[in-house]
């Protein structure tokens, strides 16, 4: 018995919240890793931009 339920019933119904939260957290890290890459690319560019004389006029 788990919380007064037969084990298979407990796992069938009440284990899901935990599983879903774990999946969501994994998704968070996967997405975060991707965002971080994007940020690095943007940062590399910004640094390069700072290091050069500012232009910005029409050619």
């Amino acid at each position: 018995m788990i919380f007064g339920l037969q084990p298979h019933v407990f796992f069938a119904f009440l284990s899901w919240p935990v599983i879903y939260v774990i999946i969501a957290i994994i998704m968070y890290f996967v997405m975060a890793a991707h965002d971080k890459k994007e940020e690095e690319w943007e940062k590399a560019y910004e640094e390069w931009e700072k290091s050069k004389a500012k232009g910005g006029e029409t050619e």
Partner: protein
Amino acid sequence: MEIKILKNGYKMKDAYERLVKRSKHFTIENMDLLFYPYLLIEYDIDFGRRLEKLNERVIVMADMFRGGYSFARSRGSFARMEVEEETVMPVKMDRRKAIKEGPRTVYGEIMRKKKVLRTPDIEYIDDEVVYKPFYIVECTNEEGETFHILFDAVTGDFSLLNA
């Protein structure tokens, strides 16, 4: 021909660097300007006296090549420029039709962004054709295959043209 353009914040060299910073695994072979036509249409939104605070002037940017409208945040700054004809994309849409259809975007923005049911009056103020500069960038990957990128010279956004 001389056209009015939105000023480009990104020179060719800037665009080049921006792309190169993204990845080392490709080479840029060629890059050139292309001008995309828009109609900037100004409207006044009038919600009536009681909601005065919401009244304001807005700009709708009509895509004059494909049709389609977007809500512009601000006018931006302009320059006049002498360019070669084939780099200027033709205006394919009807100006009067664009002015007539523009308010739909404004209403759409109001309906979509917030639950505003009050119907404001929308008054046409002014319009003009301006061009936005883009770069067409030709690249090759490490296998030597060619692909193209479209680079927005005003904002620095870019996207793949063909994959």
